[in-house]
Protein backbone atom coordinates (compact mmCIF):
# COMPACT_ATOMS: atom_id res chain seq x y z
CA UNK A 1 0.00 0.00 0.00
CA UNK A 2 2.69 2.47 1.04
CA UNK A 3 4.74 1.22 -1.91
CA UNK A 4 1.95 2.12 -4.34
CA UNK A 5 1.73 5.60 -2.80
CA UNK A 6 5.52 6.09 -2.99
CA UNK A 7 5.51 4.87 -6.60
CA UNK A 8 3.00 7.55 -7.60
CA UNK A 9 4.90 10.27 -5.70
CA UNK A 10 8.23 9.42 -7.32
CA UNK A 11 6.73 8.88 -10.77
CA UNK A 12 5.15 12.34 -10.57
CA UNK A 13 8.47 13.85 -9.40
CA UNK A 14 10.36 12.10 -12.21
CA UNK A 15 7.94 13.29 -14.88
CA UNK A 16 7.86 16.81 -13.43
CA UNK A 17 11.66 16.93 -13.41
CA UNK A 18 11.80 15.81 -17.04
CA UNK A 19 9.24 18.40 -18.14
CA UNK A 20 11.02 21.12 -16.15
CA UNK A 21 14.31 20.13 -17.76
CA UNK A 22 12.90 20.44 -21.29
CA UNK A 23 11.03 23.69 -20.68
CA UNK A 24 13.62 25.49 -18.51
CA UNK A 25 15.32 28.46 -20.11
CA UNK A 26 18.36 28.47 -17.80
CA UNK A 27 20.79 25.51 -18.25
CA UNK A 28 21.53 25.35 -14.49
CA UNK A 29 17.81 25.07 -13.65
CA UNK A 30 17.43 22.39 -16.34
CA UNK A 31 20.29 20.45 -14.81
CA UNK A 32 18.81 20.60 -11.31
CA UNK A 33 15.44 19.42 -12.65
CA UNK A 34 17.25 16.51 -14.31
CA UNK A 35 18.93 15.63 -10.98
CA UNK A 36 15.46 15.58 -9.36
CA UNK A 37 14.27 13.25 -12.11
CA UNK A 38 17.26 10.92 -11.64
CA UNK A 39 16.77 10.77 -7.85
CA UNK A 40 13.12 9.83 -8.36
CA UNK A 41 14.14 7.11 -10.81
CA UNK A 42 16.59 5.77 -8.21
CA UNK A 43 13.71 5.54 -5.73
CA UNK A 44 11.61 3.68 -8.32
CA UNK A 45 14.50 1.22 -8.88
CA UNK A 46 14.53 0.53 -5.14
CA UNK A 47 10.74 0.06 -5.14
CA UNK A 48 11.18 -2.49 -7.94
CA UNK A 49 13.69 -4.44 -5.84
CA UNK A 50 16.86 -3.35 -7.69
CA UNK A 51 18.70 -1.92 -4.69
CA UNK A 52 22.21 -1.93 -6.15
CA UNK A 53 21.02 -0.23 -9.34
CA UNK A 54 19.29 2.43 -7.23
CA UNK A 55 22.50 3.20 -5.33
CA UNK A 56 24.56 3.18 -8.54
CA UNK A 57 22.04 5.56 -10.10
CA UNK A 58 22.52 8.05 -7.26
CA UNK A 59 26.31 7.76 -7.27
CA UNK A 60 26.99 7.59 -11.02
CA UNK A 61 24.19 9.69 -12.54
CA UNK A 62 23.04 12.13 -9.89
CA UNK A 63 26.60 12.36 -8.55
CA UNK A 64 29.32 12.02 -11.16
CA UNK A 65 27.67 12.75 -14.52
CA UNK A 66 25.62 15.69 -13.24
CA UNK A 67 28.68 17.23 -11.55
CA UNK A 68 30.46 16.94 -14.92
CA UNK A 69 27.60 18.79 -16.62
CA UNK A 70 27.63 21.45 -13.89
CA UNK A 71 31.38 21.94 -14.30
CA UNK A 72 31.00 22.45 -18.05
CA UNK A 73 28.12 24.91 -17.60
CA UNK A 74 30.15 26.93 -15.10
CA UNK A 75 33.36 26.66 -17.16
CA UNK A 76 31.63 28.02 -20.26
CA UNK A 77 29.77 30.60 -18.12
CA UNK A 78 26.35 29.67 -19.51
CA UNK A 79 24.44 30.43 -16.29
CA UNK A 80 23.37 33.88 -17.53
CA UNK A 81 22.56 32.65 -20.99
CA UNK A 82 18.84 33.30 -21.17
CA UNK A 83 18.39 33.74 -24.90
CA UNK A 84 15.60 31.64 -26.33
CA UNK A 85 16.92 28.46 -27.88
CA UNK A 86 13.63 26.71 -28.67
CA UNK A 87 13.17 25.90 -32.34
CA UNK A 88 9.96 27.58 -33.40
CA UNK A 89 9.13 25.46 -36.41
CA UNK A 90 9.84 22.12 -34.77
CA UNK A 91 6.89 21.98 -32.34
CA UNK A 92 4.54 20.17 -34.72
CA UNK A 93 7.13 17.69 -35.92
CA UNK A 94 8.43 17.03 -32.38
CA UNK A 95 4.92 16.59 -30.97
CA UNK A 96 4.01 14.25 -33.81
CA UNK A 97 7.13 12.09 -33.34
CA UNK A 98 6.86 11.95 -29.52
CA UNK A 99 3.15 11.19 -29.45
CA UNK A 100 3.71 8.53 -32.10
CA UNK A 101 6.43 6.98 -29.93
CA UNK A 102 4.22 7.07 -26.83
CA UNK A 103 1.32 5.57 -28.77
CA UNK A 104 3.48 2.78 -30.19
CA UNK A 105 4.96 1.96 -26.77
CA UNK A 106 1.54 2.02 -25.08
CA UNK A 107 0.07 -0.26 -27.73
CA UNK A 108 2.95 -2.70 -27.14
CA UNK A 109 2.66 -2.50 -23.33
CA UNK A 110 -1.12 -2.64 -23.03
CA UNK A 111 -2.02 -4.53 -26.19
CA UNK A 112 -0.38 -7.85 -26.85
CA UNK A 113 1.91 -8.04 -23.83
CA UNK A 114 1.46 -11.26 -21.85
CA UNK A 115 0.09 -10.96 -18.33
CA UNK A 116 2.91 -9.56 -16.20
CA UNK A 117 3.63 -12.57 -14.05
CA UNK A 118 6.72 -11.96 -11.94
CA UNK A 119 8.51 -15.09 -13.08
CA UNK A 120 12.00 -14.18 -11.96
CA UNK A 121 11.20 -11.86 -9.05
CA UNK A 122 11.17 -14.60 -6.35
CA UNK A 123 14.48 -16.00 -7.66
CA UNK A 124 16.05 -12.51 -7.58
CA UNK A 125 14.79 -11.90 -4.04
CA UNK A 126 16.18 -15.26 -2.88
CA UNK A 127 19.53 -14.46 -4.48
CA UNK A 128 19.58 -11.02 -2.80
CA UNK A 129 18.83 -12.66 0.56
CA UNK A 130 21.62 -15.19 0.06
CA UNK A 131 24.37 -13.04 -1.51
CA UNK A 132 23.39 -9.50 -0.58
CA UNK A 133 22.33 -6.74 -2.99
CA UNK A 134 25.83 -6.35 -4.46
CA UNK A 135 26.61 -10.07 -4.67
CA UNK A 136 23.42 -10.82 -6.57
CA UNK A 137 24.64 -8.55 -9.40
CA UNK A 138 28.32 -9.44 -9.04
CA UNK A 139 27.77 -13.19 -9.54
CA UNK A 140 26.46 -12.94 -13.14
CA UNK A 141 28.66 -9.91 -13.85
CA UNK A 142 31.89 -11.79 -13.14
CA UNK A 143 30.78 -15.14 -14.63
CA UNK A 144 28.60 -14.88 -17.74
CA UNK A 145 29.43 -11.22 -18.46
CA UNK A 146 33.15 -11.17 -17.67
CA UNK A 147 34.27 -10.28 -21.24
CA UNK A 148 31.77 -7.38 -21.64
CA UNK A 149 32.82 -6.17 -18.19
CA UNK A 150 36.48 -6.03 -19.21
CA UNK A 151 35.54 -4.38 -22.51
CA UNK A 152 33.72 -1.73 -20.46
CA UNK A 153 37.00 -0.86 -18.76
CA UNK A 154 38.66 -0.42 -22.17
CA UNK A 155 35.72 1.78 -23.23
CA UNK A 156 36.15 3.97 -20.16
CA UNK A 157 39.92 4.26 -20.80
CA UNK A 158 39.29 5.28 -24.42
CA UNK A 159 36.71 7.82 -23.25
CA UNK A 160 39.16 9.35 -20.75
CA UNK A 161 41.94 9.63 -23.33
CA UNK A 162 39.55 11.00 -25.94
CA UNK A 163 38.10 13.60 -23.58
CA UNK A 164 41.58 14.83 -22.60
CA UNK A 165 42.68 14.95 -26.26
CA UNK A 166 39.60 16.94 -27.30
CA UNK A 167 39.42 19.40 -24.43
CA UNK A 168 43.10 20.18 -23.89
CA UNK A 169 44.41 23.27 -25.64
CA UNK A 170 47.85 21.94 -26.46
CA UNK A 171 48.79 18.28 -26.08
Amino acid sequence: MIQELLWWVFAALGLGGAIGMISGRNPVASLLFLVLSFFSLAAIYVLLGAHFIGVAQVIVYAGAIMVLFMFVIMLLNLGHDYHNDVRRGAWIMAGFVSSGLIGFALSRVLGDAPATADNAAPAIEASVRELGAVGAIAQPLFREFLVPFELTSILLLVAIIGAVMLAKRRI
Partner: protein
Amino acid sequence: METRTLILSAILFSLGVFGVLIRRNAIILFMCVELMLNAVNLAFVVFSRQAGIEGQVFVFFVMAVAASEAAVGLALIISIFRHLETVDIKNFNLLRW
Protein backbone atom coordinates in the same frame (compact mmCIF):
# COMPACT_ATOMS: atom_id res chain seq x y z
CA MET B 1 3.35 -1.79 -10.71
CA GLU B 2 5.26 -3.30 -13.67
CA THR B 3 2.89 -2.12 -16.40
CA ARG B 4 2.70 1.37 -14.92
CA THR B 5 6.50 1.59 -14.74
CA LEU B 6 6.79 0.53 -18.39
CA ILE B 7 4.35 3.31 -19.33
CA LEU B 8 6.41 5.77 -17.26
CA SER B 9 9.52 4.63 -19.09
CA ALA B 10 7.83 5.15 -22.49
CA ILE B 11 6.71 8.65 -21.51
CA LEU B 12 10.19 9.61 -20.24
CA PHE B 13 11.80 8.34 -23.46
CA SER B 14 9.36 10.32 -25.58
CA LEU B 15 9.99 13.44 -23.48
CA GLY B 16 13.71 12.97 -24.19
CA VAL B 17 13.05 12.73 -27.93
CA PHE B 18 10.80 15.80 -27.72
CA GLY B 19 13.55 17.76 -25.96
CA VAL B 20 16.18 16.76 -28.52
CA LEU B 21 13.88 17.91 -31.32
CA ILE B 22 12.83 21.30 -29.95
CA ARG B 23 15.89 22.63 -28.07
CA ARG B 24 19.03 24.06 -29.67
CA ASN B 25 21.32 24.36 -26.64
CA ALA B 26 23.89 21.57 -27.05
CA ILE B 27 24.18 20.93 -23.30
CA ILE B 28 20.43 20.51 -22.94
CA LEU B 29 20.47 18.14 -25.93
CA PHE B 30 22.98 16.01 -24.00
CA MET B 31 20.75 16.08 -20.91
CA CYS B 32 17.83 14.85 -23.03
CA VAL B 33 19.97 11.97 -24.32
CA GLU B 34 20.79 11.06 -20.70
CA LEU B 35 17.06 11.10 -19.95
CA MET B 36 16.44 8.66 -22.82
CA LEU B 37 19.18 6.34 -21.55
CA ASN B 38 17.56 6.43 -18.11
CA ALA B 39 14.15 5.56 -19.53
CA VAL B 40 15.71 2.52 -21.19
CA ASN B 41 17.35 1.57 -17.87
CA LEU B 42 13.95 1.73 -16.21
CA ALA B 43 12.51 -0.67 -18.81
CA PHE B 44 15.50 -3.02 -18.28
CA VAL B 45 14.87 -3.10 -14.52
CA VAL B 46 11.16 -3.86 -15.05
CA PHE B 47 11.96 -6.69 -17.46
CA SER B 48 14.58 -8.08 -15.08
CA ARG B 49 11.69 -8.98 -12.77
CA GLN B 50 10.40 -11.32 -15.47
CA ALA B 51 13.54 -12.47 -17.24
CA GLY B 52 16.16 -12.69 -14.49
CA ILE B 53 18.94 -10.63 -12.91
CA GLU B 54 20.71 -10.14 -16.29
CA GLY B 55 18.54 -7.10 -16.94
CA GLN B 56 20.16 -5.32 -14.00
CA VAL B 57 23.62 -6.26 -15.32
CA PHE B 58 22.72 -4.58 -18.61
CA VAL B 59 21.70 -1.46 -16.69
CA PHE B 60 25.22 -1.44 -15.27
CA PHE B 61 26.71 -1.51 -18.79
CA VAL B 62 24.35 1.21 -20.00
CA MET B 63 25.52 3.41 -17.11
CA ALA B 64 29.18 2.87 -18.11
CA VAL B 65 28.40 3.77 -21.74
CA ALA B 66 26.43 6.85 -20.61
CA ALA B 67 29.36 8.02 -18.48
CA SER B 68 31.84 7.73 -21.35
CA GLU B 69 29.39 9.38 -23.73
CA ALA B 70 28.92 12.32 -21.36
CA ALA B 71 32.69 12.75 -20.91
CA VAL B 72 33.50 12.71 -24.65
CA GLY B 73 30.45 14.79 -25.59
CA LEU B 74 31.17 17.51 -23.05
CA ALA B 75 34.81 17.62 -24.18
CA LEU B 76 33.55 18.12 -27.74
CA ILE B 77 31.28 20.93 -26.56
CA ILE B 78 34.20 22.64 -24.80
CA SER B 79 36.40 22.36 -27.87
CA ILE B 80 33.63 23.73 -30.15
CA PHE B 81 32.93 26.55 -27.69
CA ARG B 82 36.57 27.62 -27.94
CA HIS B 83 36.20 28.15 -31.67
CA LEU B 84 32.67 29.55 -31.94
CA GLU B 85 31.98 31.10 -28.48
CA THR B 86 28.49 29.55 -28.46
CA VAL B 87 26.73 26.27 -27.68
CA ASP B 88 23.72 26.98 -29.88
CA ILE B 89 23.66 24.27 -32.55
CA LYS B 90 22.28 26.60 -35.22
CA ASN B 91 25.84 27.96 -35.45
CA PHE B 92 27.41 24.51 -35.90
CA ASN B 93 26.94 24.47 -39.67
CA LEU B 94 30.34 23.32 -40.96
CA LEU B 95 29.16 19.77 -41.67
CA ARG B 96 25.57 20.69 -42.51
CA TRP B 97 24.21 20.46 -46.06
